[in-house]
């Protein structure tokens, strides 16, 4: 993936943290309260597949990778297969 000519962040890390800290705290609290609410709710249990996606998403946040936002996007995305034209019956050959 290209990252050619990035302009970078002119704001020092501490300033970014100072600016974002309360918002990040509020968002973590919202997720925590949502998970508590799901646990308290009556049976049947919540969709295990989607609960697992949420857990995997939280694991990505705990990593030190530089592209956590992209990883979370990919986690919640349908997979791409190169043979989709054959699968759908959409011919792409001999065009143009």
């Amino acid at each position: 993936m290209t990252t050619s000519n990035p302009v970078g962040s002119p704001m020092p890390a501490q300033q970014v943290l100072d600016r974002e800290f309360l918002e990040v705290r509020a968002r973590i609290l919202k997720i925590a309260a949502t998970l508590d609410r799901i646990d308290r709710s009556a049976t049947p249990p919540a969709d295990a597949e989607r609960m697992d996606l949420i857990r995997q998403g939280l694991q990505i946040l705990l990593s030190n990778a530089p592209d956590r936002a992209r990883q979370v996007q990919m986690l919640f995305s349908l997979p791409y297969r190169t043979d989709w034209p054959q699968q759908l019956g959409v011919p792409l050959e001999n065009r143009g």
Partner: protein
Amino acid sequence: MDYFDPHIHMVSRTTDDYATLARMGCVGMSEPAFWAGFDRGSAASFRDYFRQLTEFERSRAANYGIAHYTWLCINAKEAENVELSREVIAMIPEFLERSNVLGIGEIGLNKNTKNESIVFLEHLDLAAKFNELVLIHTPHLHDKYLGTRMILDMLVSDTRLQPHRVLVDHVEEHTIGEVLDRGFWAGMTLYPVSKCTPARAADMVEQFGTERLCVNSAGDWGPSQPTAVPNFIFEMRRRGHSEAIIRKIVYENPLAFFRQCRRFQFTPR
């Protein structure tokens, strides 16, 4: 700062919004043809819509000193109806030489189906035959990555289309790199619910640079903010980015892309 909003659905907005955008520095906008919130029943509905886009909205914008441009198509949500889509595509050439038409758009995929793909390919054929610019809609949420990759496959399969004449909209963190790597323009749509925030758009500028990159508001009939581009400008300034970098994204880049259209005329103030 003067700016262009390259993707805003003004038919969904009030005249007060034109006044607000003018006060915030909007000097030009382009409005892609879009879904009305319900499926239209006939090609005649689209003829009236295209007149609204090429005549009425243009004059409404001009009252506030804003240059209004537009794109024509039948959108992906209505493309499941292939018969209707073909009637609309056959009608589009009637409108292509109107002076505020920039090209074919916003075409693309919504649920990544066979019929959507067929109609998308037929729009691309129209754009190639008439040498028109193309504006692309990519799907939202879990469909976005798959749909964007399918769209890129279809675009590169037609050798008549030049990547620098195609703008792929609604890119996010997982699709922007592929779009730019293949030589296309990319648009980041700022939207409070299902798309990108001004802060995440600023993050992508910091990671990917300013070449072939634009921001827009969508500003449609759903929960959206027509002032999203000024919000992005404000976010970039708060981070300490230069006026030159901001101006390139919100003014110079849209103009550079639009100037590839033979009909495009704009006089800076």
